[in-house]
């Protein structure tokens, strides 16, 4: 039994009178793929935003590798080994593909103001090192070589999704959170994306927590599925178990009288 790298316990979030998450608990075992599914408005992205530190939980705990996350500001996540992507791709359009991916390693680079301005010694050598690492790892892994020095704006949607994944991977995270990695992709690219995610999990020590609507992709690639409905966890377990769960069927297909 693998240890749990992420432990969400009893998280409650309310916006005004609306309870977005009520008493949500889930555990993510290390080096596995966990998918969170649920109808629109079920609270999936809210859960991601709580883990990322964007929303404040009224109560509950989120532990990452044994350390409390919720007391830390959002920008500390990258340093402890959590990276994520966004539902509506959050790349920086004014920068090239390589520069966007470099930003993923921001927390690991050390250049200070003076060495950066002089661009001598450490600042220059760490830039060269990160460029080499990008070229050797994520560029080839995700087939982005041909776009390396193009600016991001105007690149096809599927390519932008892969660039964002590359940016999330370059920091060699322990937990990779993917917000709708399959949304908007044609069927062929969905399978490719799923294959790439599984390949990363197999080759590195990363753990994946993802949100999506695409049942087929999720059921095929996940080790564990957590189902949210109206801000509550209604089922959790292996894909097979969750698919057979009457509460899940009810949430997706409607209640039978």
């Amino acid at each position: 039994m693998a240890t749990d790298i992420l432990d969400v316990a009893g998280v409650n979030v309310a916006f005004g009178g609306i309870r977005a998450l009520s008493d949500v608990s889930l555990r993510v075992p290390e080096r596995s793929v966990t998918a969170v599914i649920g109808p629109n408005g079920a609270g999936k992205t809210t859960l991601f935003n709580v883990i990322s530190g964007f929303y404040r939980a009224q109560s509950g705990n989120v532990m990452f590798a044994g350390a409390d996350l919720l007391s830390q500001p959002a920008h500390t996540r990258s340093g402890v080994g959590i990276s994520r992507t966004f539902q509506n791709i959050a790349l920086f359009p004014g920068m090239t593909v390589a520069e966007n991916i470099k930003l993923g390693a921001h927390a690991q680079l050390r250049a200070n103001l003076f060495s950066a301005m002089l661009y001598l010694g450490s600042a220059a050598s760490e830039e060269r090192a990160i460029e080499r690492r990008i070229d050797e790892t994520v560029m080839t892994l995700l087939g982005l070589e041909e776009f390396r020095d193009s600016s991001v704006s105007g690149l096809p949607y599927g390519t932008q999704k892969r660039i964002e994944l590359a940016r999330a991977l370059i920091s060699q995270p322990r937990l990779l959170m993917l917000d709708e990695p399959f949304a908007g992709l044609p069927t062929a690219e969905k399978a490719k994306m799923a294959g790439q995610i599984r390949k990363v999990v197999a080759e590195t020590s990363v753990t994946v927590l993802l949100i999506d609507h695409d049942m087929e992709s999720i059921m095929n690639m996940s080790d564990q599925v957590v189902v949210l409905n109206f801000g509550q966890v209604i089922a959790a377990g292996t894909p097979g178990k969750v698919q057979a769960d009457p509460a899940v069927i009810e949430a997706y297909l409607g209640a039978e009288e």
Partner: protein
Amino acid sequence: MSAQVSAAPAASFGRKALDPRIELLSWILLVLAMVSVPLWGSVYAVYMACLIAINVIATVGLNITVGYAGLLSIGHSAFLGVGAYASALMWLHLGTPLAFNLVVGAVSAFAVGLVFGIPALRIKGVYLAIATLAAQYSLYFVFQQWTSVTGGDRGLSLPKIDVFGYGDTGFYYVVAFVALVATLAARNLFRTRIGRSFIAVREKDYAAQVLGINVVVTKLVAFGIGAAYAGVAGALLAAFLRIVNPDQFTLVSSVFFLAAVVVGGRGSILGSILGALFMTMMPDLLREVIAHFSSEGADLASLLSPVREIAFGLLIVLFLIFEPRGLVGFVDRALGRAENVEARQEH
């Protein structure tokens, strides 16, 4: 791979990075041009070159704050004032050398910039611009009213500086050298994590946080660096004009630098150079144009000053409408690096 379905080669997407050889060549040409000014130019040309170099430093600084980090500031000249007064006071009271005074100017403006950068943590855009007006007016008030230190409206007069016994030419080379170093340093900054974090905060601050960027620190540093550049420019201006008084650091002057950023190109070092060059030369260019159309010398002087303000405003508006990327947009097009966003969207 479906990305290739669109058939266009990668080169047609987006703007490619500039060939390093072209960039190196441009820097060499720039240095040659700067070095040669006193050799072929008149005394007036050297004077103008000095002023341009000082304005380049200030414009690069404002472009870091406004163009790269996206923090709109209309109080930039106040930070020039801080640098000018700080270095002038060091010089007058302690007799410290120019190089040291430049550092004092930069550090004091950086510190004051951090304080006036605090509103940038909470507000953006036009609201932030209004908040930076506070820097403009409160610092102007200090320059004017703290008479025992600043000399009030009369300001401070400085002795003539003589660099290695070469007089004005020697001083020009000092200014040119500082401008070159400051510009190169800014260019280097945007090759590293710090510069990238400015752009990230400007474009999507939530994504920047996820990538481990502390938005609060980044915004403050971006504001501070911009002010520090202004401080260096102010210290050089003080040594150059040999007088420091409050009326050098008014809102009009801040708008001048903002215009230089917009006309040159936001978020571009080359744009900062071109913008400062263009804006500093513009009064002379205007004079030429007016002289071309009017024969009477008397009309000239009376016409010039109001026309100047109108022309500044008109230029900003025209650039915003027709070439939002500024003069650097023309350069990109000439080098075939145009982004052609419209053309792409037609596919």
